[in-house]
């Protein structure tokens, strides 16, 4: 697997009590670890509480947010939060938002064609995601410059070993975001409630309005991997053979090949797990406390699972079933259906409207973190229909 540009992989756990750190590149082992209850996510809330106690700083906002991040939790509350999100983002419910997404994409494509220096990240993927997702979640005007600024600052949330100063800045952005969401008071169409209004009506233990606001913010923050993945796919198309662009202009082809596109181009790079006990998985012995760093691009290209991973990768509709881009098991991404909907709506419309898209740079600027890989910008030559 070729090292990706501008990416850091940090062996954080080698600092902690000499526990072992393993990078997992094999599909069957990686998937088993991700699904297994014997391995838990990193306890982000516990880390924040420890940092708070040791530093004397107040990280109460982040501690409360962590209590509503299902990706960093295990147990009954994690299941409750995940089930709330998954129930709202089910195929039936998500389908009702398709007209909103289509409208947002078409308006943004129209706007894109008027710009002297269009950028697909700044002027297409991000504003579409923010506008649609804001409406779905019940966040008013989520595509505004102010909300966009806060959203951008939250992208480092998963990074290991953030400095205290960065964590304070992250908390400030999230506090502002939470207050904004709390004040949103969304007005919904009949039969299509936004997430915030809907989740407030659901019976849930130890889940008040502030938890509902936090979970809404969490879904938005985590959902940012969708426009990132969209941009990865677009970049691959701009660098790929011409026939790929023609294929991406076809809604039928995109839907048929969506799992391959997600397998090869999803923005999340790792799923981390901590072994909860001494155990053996796939013939590999692990000790309690071992840190497993499952590299998603590697396991998604494992030839043992996906034969001919680089040969004509977009040819077969079934070639990518079972990929790990959305994780697996109890922590599987609850937004997978929604992510697919947005990408299936945006991609063909982009390439049908502007088949002659050209990058204005040889190499885009990359978003440099451990857990996410995506271009920071995708500047284009001016567009023509």
């Amino acid at each position, binding site marked *: 697997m070729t090292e990706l540009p501008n990416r*850091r992989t*940090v*062996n*954080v*756990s*080698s*600092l*902690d*009590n*000499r526990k072992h750190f393993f990078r997992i590149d094999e599909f069957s082992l990686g998937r088993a670890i991700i699904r297994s209850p014997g391995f838990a996510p990193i306890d982000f809330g516990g*880390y924040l509480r*420890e*940092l708070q106690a*040791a*530093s004397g700083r107040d990280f109460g906002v982040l501690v409360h947010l962590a209590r509503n991040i299902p990706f960093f939790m295990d147990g009954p509350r994690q299941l409750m939060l995940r089930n709330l999100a998954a129930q709202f983002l089910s195929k039936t419910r998500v389908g009702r938002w398709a007209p909103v997404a289509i409208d947002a994409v078409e308006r943004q494509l129209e706007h894109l064609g008027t710009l002297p220096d269009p950028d697909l990240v700044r002027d297409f993927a991000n504003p579409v995601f923010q506008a649609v997702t804001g409406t779905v979640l019940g966040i008013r005007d989520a595509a505004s410059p102010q909300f966009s600024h806060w959203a951008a600052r939250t992208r480092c949330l998963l990074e*290991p*070993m*953030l*400095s*205290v*100063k960065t964590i304070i800045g992250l908390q400030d952005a999230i506090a502002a975001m939470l207050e904004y969401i709390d004040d949103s008071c969304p007005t919904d169409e009949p039969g299509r409630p936004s997430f915030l209004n809907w989740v407030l009506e659901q019976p849930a233990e130890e889940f008040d309005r502030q938890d509902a606001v936090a979970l809404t913010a969490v879904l938005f923050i985590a959902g940012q991997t969708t426009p990132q993945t969209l941009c990865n796919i677009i970049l691959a198309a701009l660098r790929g053979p011409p026939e790929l662009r023609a294929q991406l202009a076809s809604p039928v082809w995109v839907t048929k090949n969506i799992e391959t596109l997600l397998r090869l181009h999803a923005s999340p790079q790792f799923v981390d797990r901590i072994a909860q006990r001494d155990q053996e998985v796939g013939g590999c012995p692990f000790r309690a406390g071992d840190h497993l760093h499952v590299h998603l691009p590697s396991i998604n290209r494992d030839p043992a699972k996906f034969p001919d991973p680089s040969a004509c990768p977009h040819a077969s509709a079934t070639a990518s079933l079972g990929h790990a881009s959305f994780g697996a098991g109890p922590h599987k991404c609850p937004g997978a259906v929604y992510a697919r909907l947005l990408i299936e709506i945006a991609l063909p419309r982009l390439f049908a409207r502007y088949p002659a898209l050209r990058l204005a740079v040889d190499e885009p600027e990359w978003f440099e973190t451990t857990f996410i890989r995506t271009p920071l910008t995708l500047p284009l030559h001016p567009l023509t229909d």
Partner: protein
Amino acid sequence: MSLERRSEIIEFLRDQVARRTRSTVEGINNDVDLTDLGLKSIDVVLISGEVEDRFGIDVDPIVMFEYRTIHAVADRLLEVIEAA
């Protein structure tokens, strides 16, 4: 000036490491890997914060991990301070 500043940084780091590991400054070897001195990742984050406050620079905690020993970290911090 650089030598004096370097000594100041080293003394500061030794003091911070001693506090986090609840050991004596005298017992700290400047050329031993930080993990062998008993530091955990949270300690590295906290010490980096103290360095930022003390010397007025931005410090990514990863620096302490990447440079591994007090001497190497001090040399890197000196570069950052003198470039600021």
